[in-house]
């Protein structure tokens, strides 16, 4: 079967080619999906949170300077979603509860941003906020009314939102952590609640230690 030398050589070449192809195609066997590749890239690049105007569930509008000198723990959602978003927010609430109370509101603010500004007006967000027992201060729910601003944020943070034409969206979900310099420093798996809480706590502890 393996008598022909040339054929053996070409088989070897083909196998080497395959290894190189898979190595490059998956960033060294690290990213088999676009989502993993996206997260790895974001954490590398640390994009800056662009200038946007938020309108929260209390109807207040403000820019990001509202949260000066605070970390931001962010999720992206739309309230009409009945699949992954409630789970995402429920998990976010658990992270909120797991963090040491002293940091909340002082060093870190939780922020849920809607990418469906048309339907998610302040009163809708207010209802959603109550459902998840967020206090509206240290955990705020907000929309970005200006579509251009919203799009620029989604693009920078690699949030892909595809409308399915029936009022729902398919979108990728994660916990996003933005530091005091408005840089995205981590994207965490939203199903790993404890890991996220531990990570955020250790980052905050380090930060307070510097103070």
């Amino acid at each position: 079967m393996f008598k022909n030398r040339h054929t053996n050589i070409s088989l070897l070449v083909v196998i080497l080619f395959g290894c190189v192809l898979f190595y490059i195609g998956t960033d060294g066997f690290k990213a088999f999906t676009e989502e993993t590749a996206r997260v790895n890239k974001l954490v590398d690049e640390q994009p800056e949170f662009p200038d946007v105007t938020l309108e929260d569930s209390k109807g207040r509008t403000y820019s990001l300077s509202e949260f000066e000198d605070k970390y931001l723990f962010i999720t992206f959602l739309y309230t009409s979603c009945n699949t992954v978003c409630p789970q995402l927010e429920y998990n976010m609430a658990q992270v909120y509860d797991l963090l040491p109370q002293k940091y909340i509101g002082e060093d870190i603010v939780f922020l849920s941003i809607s990418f469906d500004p048309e339907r998610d007006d302040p009163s809708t967000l207010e209802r959603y906020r109550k459902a998840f027992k967020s206090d509206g201060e240290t955990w705020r729910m907000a929309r970005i009314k200006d579509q251009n601003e919203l799009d620029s944020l989604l693009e920078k943070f690699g949030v892909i939102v595809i409308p399915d034409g029936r009022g729902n969206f398919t979108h990728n979900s994660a916990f996003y952590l933005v530091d005091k310099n408005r840089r995205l420093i981590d994207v965490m798996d939203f199903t790993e609640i404890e890991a996220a809480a531990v990570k955020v706590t250790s980052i905050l502890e380090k930060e307070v230690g510097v103070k």
Partner: protein
Amino acid sequence: MMTQFIYGLLFYIFLMLPPVANLVESIMITHMHMQMPMLVISGFLMAGIFLKRFPRFFEKWNSNGIPGITLFMIVIICWTIPRTMDEALTLQAIEAWKFISLPFLAGFPLRDSWKKLTKAGKNLIIIIFTVKYFGMGALYIWSEDQLCNNYLVIDQLTLGWGFITTAICLVIYLVYAFTVDPTKYE
């Protein structure tokens, strides 16, 4: 041979037309189970004339068909990774790579290699694909996550079942190949 080459080439050009490419790529299952196999087929059709013109080259470097079929499998497996499908949609270079690799690195070697394989070799390849398709089907159906950012989750489920159905067809073929002896009916 020449007519086959021309048909293959026309088919290839047809698949490259932007409206055609956009249409089949807009749905996940047609992207993977229609466009990709058709690209392989176009390469398969175009290959004939080259095999005829350079028989010594293929005889020398692919005498038993194993390197060729391995290359074919590598390219096909590469294109069933969720990420490559996504990137074909977002990155031009990957899209170009798809249109080059599938006809010329999968279709070409398949044509030269398949007839050189023994019956056991052929069945082995089909068994590998059956296992792989069941595996990929399970991955796309039962994955908790959205695997491709550019497609809806419902598309992902459809694709998963497409894989399973294909795998079932392969199993039927294998059962036939191992149980029915065609010479009895001749």
